[in-house]
């Protein structure tokens, strides 16, 4: 017989798995604790990505429903630094731009504060403002009523007011009714409606909105719009934007500020992404610590099982067989932790999203990433102990009782 005639047999996958599970079966508590480290790391990362994805999905849904074709025109500053005014005809001019579908406006009523009753000290304005509004405002801004009705041609002339969401809350007005009145600019106005929060026109939230004619007749409103809202066809938004300033105030186009409120929401999203990356880093640190825990468990496992290693070598295990067994154990530990962590992270995402009324979203790439991170951690943590176990001389291993 020649030396080449004898070769070690390979292990079957099932036997590798069973061999890797020996440590888990004989020391379940330790296995569970070291897998827990991995689970926490993976759960943190999955939850961070899941929650930020859910938040983004919610923002996208909001933008979809509100539309991104809203542009606003406001007066800026004059050349000498004073507050500019929009010309009284600004609305008409803007409405003449071809692609503009709808136009509306509000005008800040100077020096008109809003109080619940006449007994409130004058200084406690609550940061609320009075606005003269056009009756077509809801269509242009996407503002929706929570209670009551919007102003119509008749109520716009009467002392009737619609409160923004924050304004209603600060004033303590829960519903619109004929007997519910608030003091606007020193006069009593009946609350006919309360708005829901308006994400694209946040200025409405803190406003007491009265009809344009009523503001002029009763509050001394000067008739100059302070914000003009326009909706245009989606494809034409940029074109409209480029001519909007000059159209609203042909005499001094530099004194006009044009903005797209949906951009602010998108910017909020970008800011959230930066924060997400930071939290993801924290999750990665947790995973690293978990990996160290698994490595520690594996090193101890090898030390405790010297006799078993010696026996296996005597039974014909090669260095590779021993290495494979301990690497499989490390991977199995990490995989169990990773699976538990992914479930936990998805659960945290789902419950947090539910509490915020967001659509729960856990991107598939997150789970794939979690799997990859888990296997990488398991390999790194198990490599040294496995190689060490494989290199142990069989006699040394057997000499240990």
């Amino acid at each position, binding site marked *: *017989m020649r*030396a080449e005639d*004898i*070769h*070690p*047999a*390979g*292990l*079957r996958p*099932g*036997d590798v798995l069973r*061999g890797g599970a*020996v440590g888990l*079966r*004989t020391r379940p508590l330790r296995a569970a604790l070291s897998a827990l480290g991995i689970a926490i790391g993976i759960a943190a990362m999955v939850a961070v990505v899941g929650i930020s994805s859910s938040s983004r999905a919610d923002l996208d849904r909001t933008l979809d429903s509100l539309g991104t074709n809203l542009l606003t025109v406001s007066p800026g500053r004059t050349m000498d630094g004073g507050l500019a005014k929009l010309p009284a005809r600004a609305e008409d001019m803007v409405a003449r731009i071809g692609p503009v579908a709808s136009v509306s406006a509000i005008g800040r009523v100077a020096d008109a504060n809003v109080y619940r009753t006449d007994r409130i000290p004058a200084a406690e304005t609550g940061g609320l403002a009075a606005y003269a509004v056009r009756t077509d405002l809801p269509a242009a801004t996407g503002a929706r009523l929570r209670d009551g009705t919007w102003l119509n041609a008749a109520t716009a002339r009467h002392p009737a007011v619609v409160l923004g969401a924050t304004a209603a809350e600060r004033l303590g007005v829960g519903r619109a009714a004929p007997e519910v009145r608030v003091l606007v600019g020193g006069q009593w106005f009946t609350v006919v409606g309360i708005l829901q929060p308006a994400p694209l026109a946040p200025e409405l939230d803190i406003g007491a909105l009265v009809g344009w004619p009523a503001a002029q007749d009763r509050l001394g409103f000067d008739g100059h719009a302070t914000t003009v809202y326009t909706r245009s066809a989606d494809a034409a938004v940029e074109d409209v934007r480029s001519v909007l300033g000059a159209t609203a105030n042909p005499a001094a186009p530099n004194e006009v500020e044009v903005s797209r409120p949906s951009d602010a929401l998108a910017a909020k999203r970008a800011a959230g992404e930066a924060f997400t990356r930071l939290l993801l880093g924290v999750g990665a640190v947790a995973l690293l610590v978990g990996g160290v825990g698994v490595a520690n468990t594996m090193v101890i496992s090898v030390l405790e099982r010297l*006799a*078993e290693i*010696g*026996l*296996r*070598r*005597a*039974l*014909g*295990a*090669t*260095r*590779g*067989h021993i290495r494979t067994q301990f690497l499989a154990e490390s991977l199995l530990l990490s995989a169990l932790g990773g699976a538990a962590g992914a479930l936990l992270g998805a659960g945290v995402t789902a419950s947090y999203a539910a509490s915020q009324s967001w659509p729960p979203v856990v991107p598939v790439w997150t789970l794939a990433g979690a799997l990859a991170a888990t296997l990488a951690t398991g390999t790194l943590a198990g490599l040294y102990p496995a190689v060490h176990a494989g290199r142990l*001389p*069989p*006699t040394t291993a*057997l000499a240990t*009782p």
Partner: protein
Amino acid sequence: MIELTNVTRTYAGGVTALAGVSLTVAAGELVAVTGPSGSGKSTLLHVLGTLDRPTSGGVRIAGYDVAALSDAGLSALRAHRIGFVFQQFHLAGGTTALDNVADGLLYTGLRRAERRRRAERVLHRVGLGHRMEHRPHELSGGERQRVAVARAVAGDPPLLLADEPTGALDTASGAAVVELLRELNGAGTTVVVITHERELAAALPRQVRLRDGRLEHEGTVHGT
């Protein structure tokens, strides 16, 4: 079956465990290796079992030149040609007798079902057919050692090495294990038993006595 030619084994630090041992064991023999503690018995068993390589000298086991085999080759040789029985049994706790024996065939490349089938057969052969589903802590010492013997011979190795197989057993259990080794030898297996019990050694057909790493005496011990 075994051919040792002038084998020495020196450990780091200058300790000489084997100092030129030449020994030939033919197929089908039943040999006792005796000697006091520190005489090199364990080292000899490790060299015979290819768990350790000699510092110098030639070793041929079951027709293979150990020096010419890689570590993987030696592993395969152990898997297919050599069975081990240890004083401490080395059974896996929490694992049934059947699976302990079946795991002895783990590195032979056989399927699990076949390993278990053979394990069942060999357990019957060692008289433990009724103990297959018992775990080591539910077995007596003698039964445990018989499970260990079953594991060693499950793959039908031509060579069986036993290191103090009765060292942890009472006399009756020890005698049963020796009887089992005799039976296996009768069926054709070459058996080498390392022991410090003279009585046990004297009952075997051939004795080899080691002292200070050298073969001191060969033949039949007559109470010297």
